[in-house]
Every structure is written in structure tokens, then in C-alpha cells.
């Protein structure tokens, strides 16, 4: 498959860019932050997303979606990255839908997928427990109780966890932390007894929560996939999430880089445009090259996810690590080359730096994925 977008994918990009740049420029995020908005994103915009078919992008056609793949999800994520739009797209339309369509029973799909597609149901994936992303270290217990399970433990960095109507929770029905066997995914109602959600205001003014589960009862028919066998499904979901976040980071990097290059062509010091200085030119050129290479690695990973998700592991590790390292550099160079202006809250550049830091941490940082690649290559 050619490593370029198809005509349909380019059209999708154009329509996503049109909507997002029009209705959710960076000032949209700024406003939500400054107003301490309780929702943290715009429900009206989510309706627009539903009308444009973005909420159901990955939903199979029989449930009212478009049945498209990770490349298309990445196309939208990249546009979200350009304006830092806070949106449940990742948590709900990408992760929630992938979880249900890949692991759900017929009844579960019927119950949730059409609603997500219609924009009337929000989901959130609850995996991380410690400070770093270590999915196999999941310790949260799901003990058998009556006709179901009883969940006890706590999750952190649950993206959009404060507004979710449905939680997808990874817990241990067997095995020990460090093992893939014994992991099970559960569909949990956030309003169930024993669920305590704390919205965490994050550095990037995007949405996340810490959620505590204190002996939360879950029926057996709310298991997603097979008991004890959730590790493989979880890994697939995480890889989809990694590909999506990597796309967001490519969009973010390109935008912050574009703004920086524009500034280099406007700002004068010592009687010259600062973009005339070779010290800055070479750094800008290096960054451009890294962004282009990251873009290729990410598209490669998204195509690999769509072609055969079981074989996409290395490509995803490469994409997430490379896009993360590049985004980290892009935002640092962005602030540095904007000089004092880059340090002001009034200027948008800082928003990009903050979001890049969260994206880098989300679903494993560059070190995590480099380690994964090394393991997969037996060294």
C-alpha cells in the first residue's frame, strides 16, 4: 500500500480541518480553561462531530457508522492536534468504539455502538494505575462475587473519565502484576455504587480523572471479551490509542513548527530577520526533517494496524516513540525561538508544549516504546 493518503482520506482531512479550525481554534481551549468549564469540552461541537460522521468513523456500518479504520482516525486526530481541541474523540470514538467492536458481544455492540455513533454516549478507558504507563502491572482486583465480579482498586489518567457514561476498566481476575494472563476488561457504569470520580485538572487543560473503585459490583454480562483473556484485546486497544496519539503529536508538531517558522520570518534583531541566522536555520531544518520522518512512521503504523493488528506492534512502538521525541523537540524549539514571547501565557505556544507533555506520557513514552522494540527484537 502506498504510504500516502488516498483521495478519500485527503477529503476527510480537509473536512475535519475545516470544521476544527473554524470552530475550535486554540482560543477555544483557552476559553474553556479560563472559564473553568465543568465539562471541559464543547458538547455542541461533539454534536457537530456526530453530524459530520466523525463520532461513528470506526463504528461498523450496521450500527450507523462508517466502518473506517485507524488511518482515518489518525487523520482526524492530526487535525485535533493542530488546534489542541479538547474532544472525546480519542476516548469515545477511537478507544470506546474499538473496545466494543473488537471485544463486545452482540448485545453489547447493539446497546452502545449506535449511541456512540449518534453522539449520545461517551466512553473512557481506565488502565493506568501508577505514575507510568505499565499496563501489564495492572493490580486492580476483580474478584468473583455471586453472578459477577467485585472491583477494587484505583485508576489514574482516565482520559475524559469525568464525563463518561461508560467506563472500560482493566482489572485482574487472575495472575499477578507483570503477567498478561488474568487480565479482564469490564464495562462499568460510572454511576454504580462504589465508583468515585475525581476530575483532575491537568497541565494541558485537557480532560482526565482519577477513579476509585470500592467493591463495585459488575454483572458477568458486563465482561468485555473473555475472562482472564483480556490482555490481548487490551494490547490491541492500546496500540490503536498509541497510533491515534502519535497522529495527534504529528499535527501538533507541524502546527507549532509552522508558527515558529513564521515567527523566524517576522521577528527582527540586530537589524535582521532572525530567520537569517544560520544557527536557527539549521535547527529549523533538522526539526522539519524529524517531523516528516515522524509523519511517515505514524502513517506506516496506522496502515499496519488496519492491515493486521496482531503484527503492528513494532510499527506502533516506532511511531509513538518517534512522534513523541519529535513533538518534545518541536515544542521546546517553539518556545526557545519565540524567545520571551514563548514564555507568556498570552501566546499560544505554551499550550502546545503542555499538550505534548501529556501526549508523550499517554500510553507509554518514548523510553517505554524503545524498550518494547528492544524486547521484540530479543536484546
Amino acid at each position, binding site marked *: 500500500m502506498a504510504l*500516502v493518503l488516498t483521495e478519500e482520506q485527503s477529503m476527510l482531512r480537509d473536512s475535519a480541518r475545516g470544521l476544527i479550525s473554524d470552530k475550535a481554534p486554540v482560543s477555544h481551549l483557552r476559553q474553556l480553561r479560563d472559564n473553568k468549564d465543568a465539562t471541559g469540552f464543547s458538547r455542541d461541537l461533539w454534536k457537530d462531530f456526530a453530524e459530520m460522521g466523525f463520532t461513528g468513523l470506526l463504528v461498523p456500518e450496521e450500527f450507523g457508522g462508517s466502518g473506517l479504520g485507524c488511518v482515518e482516525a489518525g487523520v482526524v486526530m492530526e487535525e485535533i492536534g493542530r488546534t489542541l481541541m479538547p474532544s472525546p474523540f480519542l476516548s469515545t470514538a477511537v478507544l470506546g468504539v474499538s473496545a466494543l467492536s473488537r471485544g463486545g458481544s452482540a448485545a453489547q455492540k447493539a446497546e452502545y455502538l449506535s449511541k456512540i455513533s449518534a453522539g449520545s454516549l461517551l466512553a473512557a478507558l481506565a488502565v493506568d494505575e501508577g505514575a507510568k504507563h505499565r499496563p501489564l502491572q495492572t493490580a486492580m482486583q476483580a474478584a468473583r462475587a455471586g453472578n459477577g465480579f467485585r472491583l477494587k482498586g484505583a485508576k489514574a489518567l482516565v482520559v475524559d473519565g469525568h464525563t463518561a457514561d461508560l467506563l472500560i476498566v482493566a482489572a485482574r481476575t487472575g495472575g499477578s502484576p507483570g503477567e498478561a494472563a488474568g487480565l479482564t476488561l469490564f464495562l462499568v457504569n460510572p454511576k454504580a455504587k462504589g465508583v468515585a470520580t475525581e476530575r483532575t485538572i491537568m497541565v494541558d487543560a485537557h480532560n482526565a480523572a482519577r477513579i476509585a473503585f470500592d467493591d463495585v459490583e459488575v454483572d458477568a454480562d458486563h465482561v468485555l471479551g473473555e475472562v482472564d483473556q483480556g490482555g490481548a484485546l487490551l494490547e490491541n486497544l492500546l496500540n490503536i490509542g498509541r497510533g491515534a496519539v502519535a497522529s495527534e503529536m504529528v499535527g501538533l508538531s507541524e502546527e507549532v513548527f509552522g508558527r515558529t517558522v513564521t515567527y523566524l520570518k517576522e521577528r527582527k534583531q540586530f537589524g535582521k530577520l532572525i*530567520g537569517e541566522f544560520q544557527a536557527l*536555520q*539549521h535547527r529549523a*531544518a533538522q526539526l522539519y526533517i524529524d517531523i516528516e*520522518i515522524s509523519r511517515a512512521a505514524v502513517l506506516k503504523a496506522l496502515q499496519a494496524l488496519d492491515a493486521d493488528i496482531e503484527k503492528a506492534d513494532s510499527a506502533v512502538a516506532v511511531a509513538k516513540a518517534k512522534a513523541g521525541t519529535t513533538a518534545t523537540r518541536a515544542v521546546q524549539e517553539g518556545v526557545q525561538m519565540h524567545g520571551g514571547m514563548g514564555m507568556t501565557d498570552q501566546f499560544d505556544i505554551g499550550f502546545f508544549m503542555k499538550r505534548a507533555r501529556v501526549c508523550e506520557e499517554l500510553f507509554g513514552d518514548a523510553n517505554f516504546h*524503545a*524498550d518494547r*522494540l*528492544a524486547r521484540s527484537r530479543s536484546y
Partner: protein
Amino acid sequence: MSDLDQFRKETRAWLEANCPPEMRKAATADSDVFWGGRNAKFASDAQRAWFERMRDKGWTVPDWPKEYGGGGLDGAEHKVLREEMGRIGARPPLSSFGIWMLGPALLKFGNEAQKKEHLPKIAAGLIRWCQGYSEPNAGSDLASLQTRAESDGDHFIITGQKIWTSYANYADWIFCLVRTDPAAKKHDGISFILFDMASKGVSTKPILLISGYSPFCETFFDNVRVPKSHVVGTVNRGWDVAKYLLQHERAMISGMGDRGVSRPLGQVAADSVGSDDAGRLDDAMLRSQIATFEIDEAALAAAAERAVDLAKAGQSHPAFSSAMKYYGTELNKRRYEILMSAGGIDALEWESERSGGGARPRAWLRTKANSIEGGTSEVMLGIVAKRILDLPGA
């Protein structure tokens, strides 16, 4: 089954049947590479068989037109052939500057007589070419070159000196930049001309490098007579040809690393460093360096693939090969720094049989030229800044 799937199936079967097992591993010694030319010798029967079979299919230059000795493959088919060769680790059957550099320039700028004369001989490995670009005072500032070509009836008389001429001492012909109008601005008085290295007045002198090898020469021209019909393109417009060819040279150099063919670097390192009980390289810092390197290496491979696809879709920037050249060469230098570190004291031996005559340290030193030849890394970054990012005054 689509035509392309059918092509893949047939190609795979043909390669399985025709690529000798000895040709399915990466070239390590100089003699593993077949360069062709009047004095070419095959290092083995397998090398000869592989070359002749591929030549007969036109697959020494798969995407050149059939009438010039090529395989006539379109972009998609060529990609399939590369992937299928990569799948079995097949070596290129013929390597040459004629294939990588002159051929593409002739296809674009050459007249019919020049194409008919030179391209089939490149494809068949009959003539080995060298490149006369750099001069002692024209390196990064290539357009300041001074080798003179003075008009004498229907001939030019060429006098001057080239340097860093790769394998000039083995080459049969040279493609050369000469100054045909000393009065014009520096980019406007240059012509691109072809001549036989056996011509009277041509001499070469190998340059000993830090690797202990002499892949480059100084090349001297003392009143060499060359027919004017050997100019490619228009007289005094040679810089256009030179730039176009440089893009191909840069693409070639950026692909010089042995990506994808050899074992993962981490496993090579484990041979000398060892592994711990969990199977991890027994040097955590080196392991981390290698894994980070392999991330960049895989990402670059994707970018190289994408560059080809973008070109096919007519969406590529003409200066993008400079970006790839920069990244590819810097990466290859990193690879060899890691290999030297992983090899430890074993990688320091220079002459022993055990070390293959110091193969690793010599290769390590050779890579240092990657970011100089074909345009330095600094020149590449300058081109990206000016032509792609449109930064001022660059």
C-alpha cells in the same frame, strides 16, 4: 488477483529460482559488490550467474525503458521487485554510478543518440563511470569549479583537476562538470560533458584515507580533447543537469546504510557484550542507545518508502532528497559509533585475520565521509532551510 499481485507472485517465484543462495546475504567485502566495466571480474560463479540473469531481464535497472536495456517496470512494479528482493535479502546484481547518477540524468537531459549509446552499456555493466564534480577549491561551493573547457572547432580542450573522484582509477568513462564560459556568473558558465578516461591527457592518483583504503582519486586533465557532441543538455546550462543528478546521488547515499538486510543492531551487540538472564543486552545504557537508534532507523525506512510514493503521486518536493541525505548519513554514522562501542576492544584491531583485516573500524571510519560527500550535512540543512522552509537570506 490484481495484475500487481500476479506480478508479485511471478517475481517471487522467479527470484526464488534464480537468486543463488550466496547472493542472499549483505555484501561485507569490497569484492562482494559487482561494479561492471571493461576490466570487471566476478568474485564468484554465483555473482556472475546472478548478474547475468538479472541483466537478461533488464533488472539491473528495473525502471528504465526496455529500449535502453531496462526492465520497463512502472513505479508500483519496481516497488514490488524491491520488496521481494528485500524479503530474501538479495544483493543488487550490479552497482554503479551509471545506474544511480548518470542514467537518470541522461534519461532526463540526454539526446537520443546519447541515450542509445550509453544507457544500454550501463545496464549491461559494460562501462563503469565515475563522477568529476569536486575540485580542490570547489567542495561545498561546487559551482565555483575552475576546470576549463576551451572551444577548438567541434571539440573542447579540457584542462584542470578534480578531487574525491570515486574509483576514478577503475572507471572507463567520466561525467564531468567543466567551465565553458569563464565570463558568465558562476552557475551559468558550466557544462556537463562525458568522455573516455582512456583519452590522452587523463591521469588519476588514489588518495589514502583514514580507513586505510583509497576509494577516491585526484584526477588530472591535461589538454584532453572531447567532441562537443558529448555535452549533455545545453552548453553553459550544465548546472541544471548537475543539480538533478545530485538529487539522485543524495538519495543513493541516504540509502547506503545496510538497513533491513542485516540483523538488528542489538543482536549484533549482544554477540560481544552478552545478555542478562532476562535476555536483555548486558549493558543498559548501550541497549537504550541502540533501541533509540532502531526507532530512528525504522522511521527513516518509512520515510524513504513514503518519499518514493510521494514522488509517484507527484507530491514530492524536489529538495526533499537533501532532507533524506542529511538524516540517512547522520544515522549511518551513529550506527557505526554504536557498533564500535558494542565491539569494544575487539573492534580496534586493524590487521588481524580474526578481525577481517579491521573490517569494522575501517567501515566505521568510512562512514565519516557520508555526511561530507555529495554535499555536507550543513549544505543539506541550508538547502532545506532555503528551498523548503523559505527562510530569508539563506
